[in-house]
């Protein structure tokens, strides 16, 4: 478990001095970071501690309407961060889910940070797995570890990171615990120092893998640059109008895999 103790101060990851909080000065930035997560997991608190903004946070679901934006600087790079509305999934069609889904798909953030509630890991993982189907650059922020400890729940973050193929950072954002590590991981994924190998739904989807594979192959031929052809195949089979339109207009073809090593 990562805590900000004295040893951390000597390691290169501890870059508090580097972290110039930029508030909402968005004039120049190198990377875009999206912040996704279930409602009421402390997403807005994480947003505030990353940006140094003091957006009002409240202990109730659905507080963040639309999206908020801010910025921060870490290791000479400027990051723009977008707080998406909290959602339980990206599959169905409520406004919130569409805003979040569209931003991750069409906004093509360099990194998507998924904030989850450590005390409700299993339910929160549903969203994580869906995000990982869309993007292959993500960092998992396991928030509220203090509460998990109070409920006598322990989470093996290293194993979780291995299974999901993305960095996993336990945090207690309200107390500022783990935020520096989170910043470092966002930086590493954005700059390509950490290459994600995201978990893809492993279990065969019953009786339909043939259809998925066939469609997947077709999409991959037409849009060889797409990182998430299988997810698009799934959406098409479900009849997702927005994705169908994006295919028709070729908008989807503009979605290139994010280049490693930024510049």
């Amino acid at each position, binding site marked *: 478990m990562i805590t900000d103790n004295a040893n951390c101060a000597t390691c290169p990851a501890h870059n508090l001095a580097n972290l110039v909080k930029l508030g909402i000065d968005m004039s120049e930035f190198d990377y875009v970071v999206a912040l996704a997560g279930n409602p009421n997991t402390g997403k807005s608190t994480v947003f505030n501690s990353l940006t140094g903004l003091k957006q009002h946070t409240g202990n109730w679901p659905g507080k963040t309407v639309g999206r908020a934006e801010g910025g921060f600087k870490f290791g000479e790079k400027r990051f723009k961060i977008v707080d998406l509305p909290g959602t339980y999934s990206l599959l169905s069609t409520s406004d919130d889910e569409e805003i979040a889904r569209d931003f991750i798909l069409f906004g093509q953030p360099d990194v998507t940070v998924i904030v989850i509630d450590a005390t409700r*890991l299993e339910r929160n993982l549903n969203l994580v797995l869906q995000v990982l189907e869309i993007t292959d650059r993500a960092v998992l922020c396991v928030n509220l570890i203090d509460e998990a400890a109070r*409920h006598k*729940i322990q989470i*093996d973050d290293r194993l979780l990171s291995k299974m999901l193929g993305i960095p996993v950072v336990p945090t207690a954002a309200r107390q500022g615990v783990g935020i520096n590590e989170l910043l470092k991981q966002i930086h590493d994924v954005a700059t390509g120092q950490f290459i994600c190998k995201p978990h893809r*739904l492993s279990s065969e989807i019953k009786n339909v893998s043939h259809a998925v594979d066939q469609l997947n192959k077709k*999409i991959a031929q037409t849009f060889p640059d797409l990182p998430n052809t299988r997810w698009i195949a799934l959406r098409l089979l479900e009849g997702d109008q927005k994705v169908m339109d994006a295919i*028709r207009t070729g908008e989807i073809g503009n979605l290139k895999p994010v280049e490693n090593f930024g510049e």
Partner: protein
Amino acid sequence: MNKTEEILSTANKLRWEVGENFHDSILESIYKDASEISEKVVTRIGEKPKFDLDRFIDRIVTGRWTGFPIMFLLLALVFWLTIIGANIPSSWISYILVDTLHPLLKNFMNSIQIPFWITGLLIDGAYLAAAWVISVMLPPMAIFFPMFTLLEDFGYLPRVAFNMDNLYRRVGAHGKQALTMSMGFGCNAAGVIATRIIDSPRERIIAIITNNFSLCNGRWPTQILIATIFIGGTVPAYLAGIASAGAVVAIAILGVLFSLIVSWGLSKSVLKGEASAFSLELPPYRPPRLLQTLYTSLIDRTIFVLWRAVVFAVPAGIVIWLVANVNIGGISLAEYFIRGVDPFAFFIGLNGVIILAYVIAIPANEIVIPTVLMLTVLSTKMTLGAGAGVMFELDSTAATANILHAGGWTVLTGINLMLFSLLHNPCSTTIYTIYKETKSIKWTMISTFLPIAMGLIICFFFTQIWRLIAG
């Protein structure tokens, strides 16, 4: 056929193959993976504690018999603390801003030969209005908002929504309206924006129209002051605080009732439809961070709201000074209006002063009381120092009470003012927000005029019944 169309037609063909359960199979495979992963990485240290505090609190605060009484008691406690806590700092601030600074400024203006009407507009109008708003509003807000924010931080508001949700669903509105209603207790404009969490346009419009029935913080001070004077005055002194707090809670509950009734009326008539389902997650209780809550509620809410009130009070102060000092045939504009409206106002148990005050105070509810006092003094020709159209010093509730009583106010006037303060048009900011959110002049007009109509009708009937009973 081009390649993209080919993909789409393949998808259309294959969609028949995958069958209707496709969506469910995807969900199933997501759930399966999620549970496999979490099984491997999550360990529980020892037994789960037998006594779950969260569950225990939830059972009480959302209980069938205990939920609502606890809600009312908590609200009453918050108001009671606000009422008894605000009076003393209020008189300090008023002593500094009104008693001390105002004469200094006025003498200064006089000493450098500024024409009387400029001094009148700037010092007696603009400055005094701002000073009044600060001394009347800052202390209650500085007590009320932190307490309200602490409750919110702790996680109590979703429980309120949980208690209310069923009621809203039964009247054909969306359960989430309980949440936007709670937000409206802070600020109706914020509550209207918050209705974005309701997806169905029908239910959203209901929530927007009825949000005005949540007393906003611009109206809390009016309610609290009038309740303190007229309700608190009718009972022995040691009960005054409790009685006034009770009266304010009663008005707040009445507002919730009206929002239910109007929601029901709308969903049975012009906005017909079924309530849609939603899931409301009760977040875990979290110990509030005291210092941070104090900081954010003071900066974000108190100062923000106060600033808005001052910004609106300054031009209103100028208007008040003008209507009180521009004379036609020796009678001021304000007096013309007040005399003209008085007979009508008498029917609904109010008076011309209150009606004029609400017209002047359309920009912000916060300045209703200062305006009422100033106009009362003016219309009764009281000679209290400063002269016509000057909002003068009132360093205690007792002084306010004296003026209102002298102006012919009775308990009935007080109660009607409380009712009318609950039921009248939203402030201009809220009206503008409603227009921006609905993009419809029709719904904006309905949201604006429906509450006024209700206010007039309710005050009328209440007054007639009161007069019948009281003789």
